[in-house]
């Protein structure tokens, strides 16, 4: 170190300042703030995956190797699609942020566990290419990529997307081993009648279209099991509802997501369901079955809360979440498809820019319209 104040003594710049600046350099010159809270995109994605892990592992155990293979192939397709798009566009790879893996994970949780592998691969590619990269990649997509893919698959391949199986837990008699599971996923042989099943929502919709009384249908032996344990046909995200709820609450307490949005989705679904069931139990499913069936919990805590495609003010999140809940109930109760979460999320995604514009926080010292507050006495 040079003597104090020595470096610049007696020197006037005269327009000729040395390139490295005068005197003793102090080090890096960075703009304030010079502190950071430590949050990062990859940390956020990692926490979300950690929250999904218990339900996913539970689903692997229940539906065996075919579910594992489908999951892995979906994730691999997402990662490859992301890598490929970025290579094509000559962009720096962003696989490290974990968002492609998370998209694939959420999509895989919404698929029938024994669906053929190409469904997962195609879905993963659609999610990343059509759902995300064509808009410019992370942060730019208006619609939830996993839900875009799910809806495309559902509309294009309705049979493959609604072939559910009863749980055949790993290790139980009749559960496929690794190789057999691979055959199921890759070759997609017809499902044996013994394990093919409908999901509860699908079953209810079918019975309803036949004019049956739902109250009797739910008590009948032919109805798929629908208790809270998750031992029932459905996607990994449906059967693991309780574990997903635990994971979602973990995210709320970890500060990754707010409680407003999931609460709004659940309320938006539960309130019309309660009212509908109370008025016409033969026509509408009870609220508890709505909450535990389909993608309700997955959607409320993990899909609706996607940062990119949800509003960023608390008021906006309430409106957005309530909209998803109500639309889901409407589609489930009146629509052609048994499950409506994906459609509801996409419909509300489209409204997000408008919601963000209308429901801005009030600026301190201004009224809602943005005019400065009046002074007292004016």
């Amino acid at each position, binding site marked *: 170190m040079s003597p104090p104040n020595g470096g610049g003594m007696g020197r006037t710049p005269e327009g000729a300042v040395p390139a490295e600046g005068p005197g003793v350099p102090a080090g*890096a010159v960075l703009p*304030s*703030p010079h502190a950071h809270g430590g949050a990062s995109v990859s940390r956020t994605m990692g926490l979300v995956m950690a929250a999904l892990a218990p339900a996913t592992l539970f689903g692997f155990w229940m539906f065996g190797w075919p579910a594992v293979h489908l999951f892995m192939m979906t994730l691999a397709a997402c990662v490859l699609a992301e890598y490929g798009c970025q290579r094509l566009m000559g962009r720096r790879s962003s696989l490290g942020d974990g968002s492609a893996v998370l998209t694939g994970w959420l999509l895989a949780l919404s698929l029938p566990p024994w669906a053929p592998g190409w469904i997962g691969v195609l879905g993963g590619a659609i999610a990343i290419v059509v759902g995300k990269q064509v808009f410019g990649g*992370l942060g730019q997509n208006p619609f939830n990529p996993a839900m875009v893919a799910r809806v495309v698959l559902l509309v294009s391949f309705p049979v493959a997307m609604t072939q559910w199986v009863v749980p055949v837990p790993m290790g139980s008699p009749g559960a496929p081993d690794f190789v057999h599971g691979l055959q199921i996923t890759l070759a997609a042989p017809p499902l044996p009648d013994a394990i093919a099943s409908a999901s509860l929502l699908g079953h209810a919709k079918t019975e309803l279209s036949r004019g049956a009384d739902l109250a009797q249908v739910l008590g009948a032996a032919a109805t798929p099991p629908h208790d809270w344990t998750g031992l029932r046909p459905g996607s990994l995200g449906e059967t693991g509802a309780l574990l997903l709820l635990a994971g979602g609450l973990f995210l709320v307490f970890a500060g990754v997501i707010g409680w407003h949005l999931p609460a709004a989705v659940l309320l938006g679904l539960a309130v019309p369901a309660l009212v509908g069931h109370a008025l016409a139990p033969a026509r509408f499913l009870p609220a508890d079955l709505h909450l535990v069936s389909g993608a309700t919990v997955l959607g409320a805590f993990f899909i609706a809360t996607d940062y990119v495609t949800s509003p*960023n003010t608390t008021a906006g999140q309430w409106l957005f979440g309530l909209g998803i809940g109500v639309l889901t109930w409407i589609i489930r109760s009146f629509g052609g498809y048994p499950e409506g979460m994906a459609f509801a999320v996409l419909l509300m995604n489209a409204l997000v820019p408008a919601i963000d514009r209308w429901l801005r*926080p009030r600026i301190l010292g201004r009224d809602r319209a943005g005019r400065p507050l009046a002074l007292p006495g004016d």
Partner: protein
Amino acid sequence: MRLLSYFRGEAFQRGIHPPSCKLTAATPIRRMPFAPRLTVPLSQHIGKPPRPIVQVGQEVVRGQPIARTDDWLSVPHHAPATGVVEAIDLRPSARGPWTQSIVIRVHPGATQEDLWGEPRDLSGATPQDILQAVWDTGMVGLGGAAFPSHAKLSVPKQAKVHTLVVNGCECEPYLTCDHRVMVEEADPLIVGIRYAMRATGAVRTIVGVEDNKPDAVAAIQAAIDRARGTTTEGDIFVEAVPTKYPQGSEKMLIMALFGVEVPSGGLPVQLGMVVNNVGTLAALGRLLPSGRGLTERVVTVTGPGVARPGDYRMPLGTPLSFVLEYAGAPADSRQVILGGPMMGQSAATLDVPITKGVSGVLVFKGDDLAHREGLRTFPCIKCGECVESCPMGLNPSQLGMLAAKREYETMGGQYHLGDCFECGCCTYVCPSNIPLVQQFRIAKQVLRERAV
């Protein structure tokens, strides 16, 4: 006495809670010796620079005025040390451009006792006399804004002030100079408050202190109790406010204390309030009775890169290099910040002096820096953390995306960028590590230039 609860409104909304890192909160203020040379920039406050009234080669004594001004929005400067004026020319400044400065070579053996002063009897002084006396001290806001204090204490004719708010929040992490001043100089603070109340006509004073400084609250309360009955100028209260950044912003503090919003584009004085920093009023309490000028201030020297952190009372004009050497900061790669970590400014060179507005010298080591530079910027994922943290209720996420598209007019018009005071909360919480505040500074600068 605790303040009556009706004074207490809602604390301000949003904001953040960074780790406080107040390493030097329990260390008494120490004196820093003279550097061999002191550099007094003429422009170190908001407003016009004063003109030098000394010549090169002239002997000056500590406290003697060396620059004077007739401009209302400017302040005089005083010699921080006894010595010889060695040069009056351009020197580096913390803000970047070289600026006209008076360089004083300090006499060996010069003491830090003030040798120059014009004691005056202010007991019967009018508000105008007090403002003149404040002006003569060369005082500016010591909290960092460096706005001339006499201008801040003068009340426009059409306004009437009822409350003096004294800002003892010190919400920036690391900084403790105000904290130590409140603990050690509570009595001069009360004296300064009395003068400020007389100058403004305020009938009550509320000292707002964040509740992470209970010893400061206790010290001020004790000083209030000691001073009770000696004057008739209304009541002084000290109030603890919940700790939250950026409480030290005057709009936030007024919100926290009274639940009142300062209208956008307005000033607290329009609501009958004047806000002053504790350090400013404590210094005025010491200087005004003896008619001395501001020649030194308390500066927190701290951070991971400092061996002997502490609050130092240092002569104005002390070069940064001397400060760091004295406090034990190694010379390897590092970052030196003037002010706190949230709003402070990186120093480009150690040849810049300590000025009236510098509250802290913060040194980060090379490895802290390597970590920060290693962080990659991701696209905005619209997580809304910044919206949840902006104390002004702006939408930094939206503003950042507009800045990336250079839609500066929209930022200023539709999204009220002008209300941003660059507290840094949005950037602090951003998981994508987007330099939002810096984008906003650039946008504001562009808008200013376009407006000309």
